[in-house]
């Protein structure tokens, strides 16, 4: 199975003043193995989304390289499915047309792409909603369509940029469990950004903590809470286990420390 490698990656872009260079991320070395669920957390502005954009091919690194298998990533492609914070579905297509859109672009015949799309919609529990308009669905359902759509090209990996940030707490927990089931069934490698440490701990096989200014990876943990859930199917119990809570506080204090330092550096009111 393919693995994703970031080797000495740095991204700088021009600042607001002429000649100024802002370093978004620096010295990133990261390997994501096939089938792993990598979640990244960190204070705001630490370059999480920059990292995802690199993997998706939406931006190019200023230094180093990003490799999927042994191919260099230079542009977006169907081997990497992306799920966005806001659903980014196409409102003129119904649910199943949205899911099969990628296959349609690639010229698959209708019956074949319908079959694949229907299978993926069933995977996210939307088999009853093929012909609904996008704007008739709730936020949670729209995100599930987004996940089904990202899976349809059978990508090597899924890139998810805070896909649950806009959802209410209850829907969020449901979709976390759903996502673990999808991951378990499809065995895709996933790169997932979140602001919620609890969500990160619950989902990740590997948790990465980033620090800002410049954005870099400061901590990395191997976790197994997701497999505990898949075994016991009791999310609340997993999330209340002592080592879960201890881990949560550890990670939170790292991020909190970073935010504090950041505010101080900016002379912010909240320092």
């Amino acid at each position, binding site marked *: 199975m393919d693995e994703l490698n970031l080797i000495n990656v740095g991204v700088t872009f021009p600042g607001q003043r002429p000649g100024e260079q802002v370093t978004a991320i620096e010295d990133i070395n990261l390997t994501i193995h096939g089938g792993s669920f990598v979640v990244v957390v960190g204070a705001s502005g630490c370059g999480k989304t920059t990292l995802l954009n690199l993997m998706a091919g939406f931006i190019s690194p200023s230094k180093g390289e990003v490799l999927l298998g042994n191919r260099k990533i230079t542009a977006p*492609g169907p081997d990497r499915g992306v799920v966005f914070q806001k659903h980014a579905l196409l409102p003129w297509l119904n649910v199943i047309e949205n899911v099969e859109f990628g296959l349609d*672009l690639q010229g698959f015949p209708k019956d074949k792409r319908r079959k694949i799309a229907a299978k993926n919609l069933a995977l996210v529990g939307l088999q009853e909603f093929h012909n609904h308009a996008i704007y008739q669905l709730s936020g949670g359902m729209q995100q599930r369509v987004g996940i089904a759509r990202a899976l349809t090209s059978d990508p090597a990996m899924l890139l998810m940029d805070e896909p649950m940030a806009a959802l209410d707490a209850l829907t969020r927990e449901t979709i976390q469990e759903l996502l673990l089931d999808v991951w378990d069934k499809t065995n895709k490698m996933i790169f997932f950004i979140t602001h919620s440490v609890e969500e990160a701990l619950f989902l990740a096989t590997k948790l990465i903590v980033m620090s800002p200014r410049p954005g870099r990876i400061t901590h990395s943990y191997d976790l197994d809470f997701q497999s505990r859930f898949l075994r016991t199917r009791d999310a609340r119990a997993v999330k209340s286990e002592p080592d879960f809570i201890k881990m949560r506080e550890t990670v939170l204090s790292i991020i909190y420390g970073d935010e504090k330092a950041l505010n101080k550096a900016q002379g912010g009111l909240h320092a």
Partner: protein
Amino acid sequence: MLNKEPSKTSSANKISKRFFAKQSVMPGQQFGAPGQGVNKLISTVTVIILFLLWVAVTETGLIKPLFLPSPSAVFNKFVVISTVGFANSTLLEHTLTSLYRIFGAFFLACLTAIPIGILMGANRVVRGIFDPPIEFYRPLPPLAYLPLVIIWFGIGETSKILLIYLAIFAPLAISARSGVRSASIEQIHAAYSMGASATQVVLRVILKSALPEIFTGMRIGIGVGWTTLVASEMIASTSGLGFMVLNAAEFLASDVVIMGIIVIGVFAFGFDLFMRYLERVFVPWKGKA
């Protein structure tokens, strides 16, 4: 005492309170939302009152027929011109001539302005080329460049259609161009991540997202087209609604003028209703995404 309205309010405040409906609302309405409620009945009453006023001031002889002919006189002219004709053409012939010019120009404008507008939004080279000429000629009054059009293209149908075409082209191209921005960067990124080519992104994401704005541009464009009709039919015409109105004005036949204006208004309004219907059919997602 606390929940009581202050008794002394300025009269301006009172008026604005009444006008903007800061008062308790009907079920299903939202407090303070501006302009809510149905205005169909009020609009119908307005139209009826205007018509009755027209009847009253003409039938009583308050205003002479030269300045404002009565509704019945206008209707009589409608019947006469429909059957006997005016300036060697019946009303139907005048109307068909004008519709041919307007919709010919509109069709050509749609065919060119929409692709050019989309490409202007999607490509900096195309934008660089077309932006200066469009922005320059757009605010010019058609009557100002009418002489040039005649000198260059003669006094035939070409000049008449070209003048209307130019009037429709600019607003339509500008709408299509700004419609390009309706597609979110996430939608475009998503399409590329599903293996779309650049052409597929333009045709199947950007163009589709721009449809609501294109429809608005088409409605504005055809509206401007109607306003240019009279100017274009100043060019050596022998028929057309604009020609009919201009010609009648020379003979001070104000009943024909008013009749012509009403026919133009009815067709313009009817087509706008048709466009709104098409909009509901083709972009049902407008404002809902």
